[in-house]
């Protein structure tokens, strides 16, 4: 018996050893060479969105309002004068299909209805889009689809010409063959969704929607069996656009497909789809663009046309390692489009580095912030450390204390010495204990109020706001004063500028300040509530929830978002507290509001000029740090991480403030020159969005901030020195208790005590 036990033990130990030794040591593998790289193709002048590839390597370029341009295989281009631009002002084109010989078909709607008969038919639903066809010589005639299988009013959205010049079109439920002379339409087969692309392989046409591939035998006129592998592929790769093209190699017909995740190859008739280029390492992965067309070239290269006048050639480079030898890992809790874009840019500059961007919580799922943080901490503790961490919603001090973050003083010093960054903002991130900087916000929000001058004037504290509200209430006994629907909104709008004042030097809670805060906000809420009876309040809430807060939008976003709220609600509410969240749109937003008020809001009985200024709250000079980036002490690529940081702080990145999706308001850049550029009306990259450009090309900066306003903003930026970072434990506590205070469940004093008690537990831990 004893022997048996010993044998068993021995076996067990062996098993354990095997399990660990086999996996423990990671050998340095040899990375094979060769992968697809891409280079940009210079396009002829014009703004092109689409491309039609021809079999001989030449292609047509076109935009919905840009002339069809032919580029031959050698790269020489020639505009075909088809009068597209002339039509731009009267037509809104929706879809265009181009044939190899240059013939084209258009789906459009007139910009103005000049034809009464047509308009009547349009209104009756008889027609929807209008169509016309231009043959290869440029002769044009209207096309009116009709035929047995075609129901009037059905939109044809996708067009494709077969190599023989037959026109095929697809609606959201069927694919048709169209006679380009008569407009006669023959319905071929039904589809589940809108077919997005069609390619021709001899007699067989492949039509693909977002989840299914249909094979249609044009000679026999019947639908062939589908292909499960393709269906699965389509349903999981179609988001963001998918393009297809046929090519042949050694008598095998190959279908190439390009999408965000890469370039794929499918051998006709087979069941395997293999990736030949990784989207992340090529232009295909660019989340700012979507692929529009794919061309297979004889030399094994590909051309990919993207939205936004951009084309690349993808070619096989044998000198590049198949996958980058180095990896830079960037982590953020929530998806941040700006950071993602920086990764793509970085990768372009360093082809030997793979940038892995990981997010802790994305999309609709049960992963909460705490869960995501727990997963991150697991990795950190296990030594599997990312190189760069975006510290938004995280406790920076905690991570700095535990030695996770690297001090950045060295990296930032040159920027501060040269006065490139707003020093006060960077300095605001200094951690008191070790007196070092561990992270730096790329963008900030600034607190603002907006209202008539008679209520508020100059920079205002919490008490000033309360007093202003009381004045406003006397004048407007009914309705809301602030744009606050629920108690939480009051807290959301005021807490950021007060929270930093509640903790003393030693990290203890200043109960008196907190009590004062609760008293003030409670008063604010009372004043606001006094303007309604119960039913009125409910109606106002309901109205606003439906109107301003669509399902997916957080109330907090709206309350905070100064430019948005200011434009929407002024005149219904009389004082606006919020944050300046974007440089250009925000500033012009204020301007629009002021201008509007002067013009047509007389009926709102404004007595005084509308003005705005900084809102100091209890803390003063607060800025809200956004996209706070830190580097990891134990990251595997410290040098690369440093370079990445430099890229983030560079002007080209800083100018791209609008990329911070999904929030869409990333903040005011901390780089002085970038901020100035963004607010420069002559800077065409930014000037287009708000200004208005007349036909001669002159900009009318009608709502553009004045020099004076710009100076005011720069001054605000210079002054901002007190950092507010959302997501601290104190904030969570104060928010939760604050709601109870405003609801009258607790007195302000009790509320402050309650917060103190909870914080005591946290401190004990």
């Amino acid at each position, binding site marked *: 018996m004893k022997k048996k036990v010993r044998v068993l033990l021995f076996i067990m130990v062996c*098993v354990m050893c095997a399990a660990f030794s086999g996996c423990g040591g990671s050998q340095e593998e040899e990375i094979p060479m060769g992968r697809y790289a891409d280079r940009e193709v210079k396009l002829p002048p014009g703004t092109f969105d689409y491309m039609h590839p021809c079999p001989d390597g030449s292609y047509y370029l076109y935009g919905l309002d840009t002339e069809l341009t032919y580029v031959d295989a050698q790269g020489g281009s020639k505009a075909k004068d088809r009068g597209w631009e002339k039509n731009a002002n009267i037509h809104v084109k929706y879809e265009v299909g181009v044939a190899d010989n240059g013939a084209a078909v258009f789906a459009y709607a007139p910009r103005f209805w000049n034809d009464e008969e047509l308009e009547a038919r349009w209104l009756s639903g008889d027609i929807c889009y209008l169509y016309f066809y231009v043959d290869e010589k440029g002769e044009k005639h209207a096309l009116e689809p009709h035929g047995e299988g075609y129901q009037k009013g059905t939109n044809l959205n996708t067009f494709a010409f077969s190599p023989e010049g037959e026109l095929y079109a697809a609606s959201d439920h069927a694919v048709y063959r169209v006679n380009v002379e008569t407009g006669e339409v023959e319905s071929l087969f039904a589809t589940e969704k809108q077919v997005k692309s069609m390619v021709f392989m001899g007699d067989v046409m492949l039509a693909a929607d977002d989840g299914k591939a249909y094979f249609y035998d044009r000679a026999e006129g019947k639908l062939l069996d589908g292909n499960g592998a393709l269906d699965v592929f389509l349903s999981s790769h179609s988001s963001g656009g998918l393009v297809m093209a046929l090519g042949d190699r050694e008598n095998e017909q190959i279908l190439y497909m390009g999408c965000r995740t890469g370039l794929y190859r499918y051998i006709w008739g087979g069941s395997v789809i293999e990736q030949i280029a990784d989207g992340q390492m090529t232009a295909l992965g660019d989340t700012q663009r979507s692929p529009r067309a794919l061309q297979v070239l004889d030399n094994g290269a590909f051309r990919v046309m993207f939205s936004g006048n951009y084309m690349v050639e993808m070619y096989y480079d044998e000198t590049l390692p198949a996958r980058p030898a180095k990896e830079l890992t960037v982590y953020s809790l929530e998806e941040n489009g700006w950071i993602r874009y920086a990764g793509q840019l970085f990768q372009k500059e360093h082809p030997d580095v793979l940038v892995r961007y990981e997010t802790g919580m994305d999309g609709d799922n*049960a992963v909460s912030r705490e869960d995501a943080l*727990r997963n991150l901490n697991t990795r950190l503790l296990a030594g599997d450390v990312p190189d760069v961490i975006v510290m938004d919603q995280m*406790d920076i001090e905690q991570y700095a204390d*535990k030695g996770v973050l690297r001090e950045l003083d060295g990296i930032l010093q040159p920027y501060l010495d040269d006065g490139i960054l707003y020093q006060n903002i960077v300095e605001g991130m200094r951690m008191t204990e070790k007196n070092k900087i561990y992270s730096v916000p790329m963008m900030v929000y600034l607190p603002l109020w907006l209202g008539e001058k008679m209520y508020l004037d100059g920079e205002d504290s919490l008490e000033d706001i309360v007093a202003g509200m009381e004045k406003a209430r006397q004048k407007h006994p009914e309705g809301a004063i602030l744009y606050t629907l629920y108690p939480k909104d009051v807290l959301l709008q005021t807490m950021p500028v007060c929270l930093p004042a509640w903790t003393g030097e030693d990290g203890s809670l200043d109960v008196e300040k907190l009590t004062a805060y609760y008293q003030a906000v409670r008063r604010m809420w009372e004043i606001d509530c006094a303007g309604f009876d119960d039913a009125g309040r409910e109606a106002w809430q309901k109205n606003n929830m439906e109107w301003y807060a669509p399902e997916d939008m957080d109330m907090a976003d709206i309350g905070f978002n100064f430019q948005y709220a200011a434009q929407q609600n002024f005149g219904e509410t009389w004082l606006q507290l919020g944050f300046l969240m974007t440089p250009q749109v925000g500033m012009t937003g204020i301007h629009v509001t002021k201008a509007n008020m002067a013009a047509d809001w007389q009926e709102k009985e404004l007595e005084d000029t509308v003005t705005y200024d900084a809102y100091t709250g209890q803390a003063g000079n607060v800025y809200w740090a956004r996209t706070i980036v830190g580097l990891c002490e134990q990251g595997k690529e410290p040098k690369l991480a440093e370079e990445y940081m430099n890229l983030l702080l560079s002007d080209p990145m800083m100018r791209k403030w609008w990329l911070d999706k999904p929030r869409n308001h990333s903040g005011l850049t901390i780089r002085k020159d970038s901020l100035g550029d963004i607010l420069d009306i002559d800077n065409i990259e930014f000037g287009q969005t708000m200004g208005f450009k007349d036909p001669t090309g002159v900009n009318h900066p009608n709502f553009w901030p004045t020099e004076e306003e710009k100076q005011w903003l720069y001054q605000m930026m210079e002054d901002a020195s007190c950092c507010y970072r959302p997501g601290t434990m104190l904030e969570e*506590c104060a928010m939760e208790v604050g709601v109870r205070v405003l609801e009258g*469940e607790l007195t302000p004093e009790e509320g402050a005590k309650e917060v103190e008690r909870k914080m005591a*537990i946290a401190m*004990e*831990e």
Partner: protein
Amino acid sequence: MFLLPGFSGVMVFYLLPFLEVVRRSFLKSGNSAFVGIENYRTVWGNGAFVLAVRNTFLYMAVGVPLLMGISLILSLLLRNLLLRRRLVSAMLLPMAVPAAVMVLTLQILIDRQGVINGVLTKVSEQMAALPAFAAIDYLNTEWALVVVVCSFLWKNTGYMVILWLAGLAALPKEVEEAAQVDGANRWQNWHYIIRPGLSGSFFTVGMLSVLQIFKSYREVWMVAGSYPQEHIYFLQHLLQNWYLKLEFDRMAALTVIMSLVLLIVCLLLQKRLE
């Protein structure tokens, strides 16, 4: 021989990780310096630890006996019924509901302005004889523990009934029948036949109740957050919060203490009940 495959897996996925926890309980989190029993001392002298231990014990002291009692009575009632299978399945239903939805349901019910308070207020308004009812903020007062215990009972009763029924089914029927023929009354039946036969099940159900207590943490956390009302601040809150603060050393020390206590209790109980 029977144990070997299972045990090697347990070794890899549980025992070794546990030993790693023990090892780390003597190291400093971050730089992995050996600090001896420093971590244990920190844990022991920690106010939050004392609070958490007290609350967890209270929760167990109330929750476990209640759960075991209720489910035992139910399973005794159930065991000869025709509808047994269906009723048990119905009782198990809350277990199958995703935690997030269960929490949402709870919130709607027990919020200060939730459905329960609403109904109680209405009832007290309708009946003048009753004293006026003031809405209770269940999660922010002493009621919090009551809520937690109730939801614990709600979710786990079916679970334990299943276990009791399994235990009851294994009792030899003949003995009971013989006793009945001999004129044993219900009490005698219970006292002399069922209870001794179930002693092993007592151990199982008891331990699993404790397990479920630990597992109920996620729901408590989802309802009340990381820093809930003082009475429902449990050991798991402490563990979780430490984890979020990267204090794994303390967590490890706390876990070692906990598992020692559990091991001793477990061995003692096992001896007594088997």
